[in-house]
């Protein structure tokens, strides 16, 4: 069944909501189980939307953005799965794998945004320095607006205007350019860490930095919790040592004082 202009626009509008949600990670309506259902509702085939949602949600169960990597976009994958199943009449499972190129396209766009939005940071820094909260907020609104627009365009074009050319575009992007963006995405956090180190790092703290690095490099664990626990251990050791030192310092001070005054008064 073909998609009408109205349905295309409605899908685009929903893509804005789900896309913004996937950007902010607030209500999780970007997850396939919800986005498929809503897309099914818009296309007048709720039953199929729910079934597709169940299948796609399970396929995405292991694909989490935790730890900084960006899996194929679940919102776009969900919407396109239902769109493809609806327009071509294939089974939801087949439609899901056909929707992956679109989800990948959105992922590339988001990766690009993650990198490109770095250029807004100096502007936000300046607004922060001037305590200009209005200007500061405008940058945040601008970034969210760009994300929303991208989601609307991708879904509206993919679903309504041009399914075939979109698919071709994903395949035609030069591999080296996509790969270059991926590499930049993986290397850019180093700039952020370097800036953090510029503020925090002093020679006496260097051992702890290296410790955390070594722990995370050799313990292959899904998050940084083990390193954090070791950080807590050392922090506690230092804490109690500092406390003890401070107490000793106070006692020495007290002794000095009482020694001086006592010596004069008691004449011992």
């Amino acid at each position, binding site marked *: 069944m073909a998609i009408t202009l109205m349905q295309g626009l409605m899908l685009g509008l929903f893509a804005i909501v789900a896309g913004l949600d996937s950007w*902010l*990670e607030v*209500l*999780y309506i970007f*997850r396939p*189980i*919800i986005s498929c259902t809503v897309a099914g509702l818009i296309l007048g085939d*709720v*039953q199929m939307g*729910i*079934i597709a*949602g169940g299948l796609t949600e399970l396929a995405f169960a292991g694909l*989490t953005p*935790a*730890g900084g990597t960006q899996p194929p976009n679940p919102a776009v994958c969900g919407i396109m799965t239902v769109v493809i199943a609806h327009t071509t009449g294939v089974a939801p499972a087949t439609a899901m794998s056909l929707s992956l190129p679109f989800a990948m396209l959105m992922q590339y766009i988001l990766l690009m945004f993650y990198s490109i*939005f*770095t*250029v*807004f*940071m*100096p502007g*936000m*820094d300046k607004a922060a*320095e*001037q305590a200009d909260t209005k200007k*500061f907020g405008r*940058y*945040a609104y601008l970034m969210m607006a760009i994300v929303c627009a991208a989601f609307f365009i991708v879904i509206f074009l993919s679903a309504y205007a041009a399914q075939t050319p979109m698919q071709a575009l994903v395949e035609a992007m030069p591999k*080296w*350019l996509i*790969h270059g*963006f991926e*590499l*930049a*995405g993986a*290397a*850019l*956090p*180093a*700039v*952020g*860490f*370097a800036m953090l180190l510029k*503020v*925090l790092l002093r020679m006496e*703290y260097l051992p702890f*930095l290296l*410790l*955390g*690095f*070594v722990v*995370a490099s050799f313990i292959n664990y*899904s998050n*940084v919790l083990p390193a954090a626990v070791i*950080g*807590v251990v*050392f*922090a506690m050791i230092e804490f109690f040592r*500092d406390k003890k030192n*401070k107490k000793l310092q106070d006692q020495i001070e007290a002794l000095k004082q009482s020694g001086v005054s006592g010596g004069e008064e008691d004449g011992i």
Partner: protein
Amino acid sequence: MASDEIKTTPTSEGSDKKLTSHDITMLGIRSSLLQAAFSYERMQAGGWAWAQVPVWKKIFGKDKKGLSEAMTDNMEFINTSPPLVSILMGLLTSMEEKHVSRQTIRGLKNGLFGPMAGIGDAIYWFTLMPIVGGIAASFAAKGNPLGPILYFLVYVGVFLCRIPFAHLGYNLGTKAIDVIQENSEIIARVATIMGLTVIGALISSYVSLSLKVKIGTVALQKDFLDKVFPNILPLAFTFFLFWLLKKKKVSPIVLIAVVFVLCIVCSFFGIM
């Protein structure tokens, strides 16, 4: 939770009590904006600061310098768990309200965001989502609308938890504040230690660089660097950037441009 304070005016409780319970509730809701200004360089920093702007405006009032310092400090790298972040925001807001030293607030923030990200990922992505998603999907795959409805309700609950979490953090901060202020020097130091340990771990897991170059039959990355020390390249690269920033006073914008050009060129020539 001090919900009975909702109706008291902001200034009625003395000079250092400027926030009402309602403000903290709003902070919990605004914590949704954490990732509004996400970029790779500083991750959630922009949204993190933006979400807290209203409470800071109330705390600092006419004190433009204080507001400027708070905003600038909070533009540093941060990446933590979105569903848990309101605890941290509440905690630090209570510190800001009492005008605890910037050093201490920054130290606490840097010490806490990493561990909270780990805890949050473990709870929300690796525990809650597989369980709820699995159950809901099993309903949905049979065409039962209960699946998506159940899923949606659980995550509305996750969203609503941001509000009590903000209060929890704020109340925790108000109670712990004397202890914290008394030992602020030690705590800042200890928090820095914890923070740097985590940052070390983050460098290892977030920054990735891998060479594809072969010298003869020896793959430089797989057969040499990985054998010597895995992730040595990301560490060296981070320190190189740190050196450029600190000693050469290179601007961060230049560094970002360098990273981009370097990566795309390396990709084009198949070096990485």
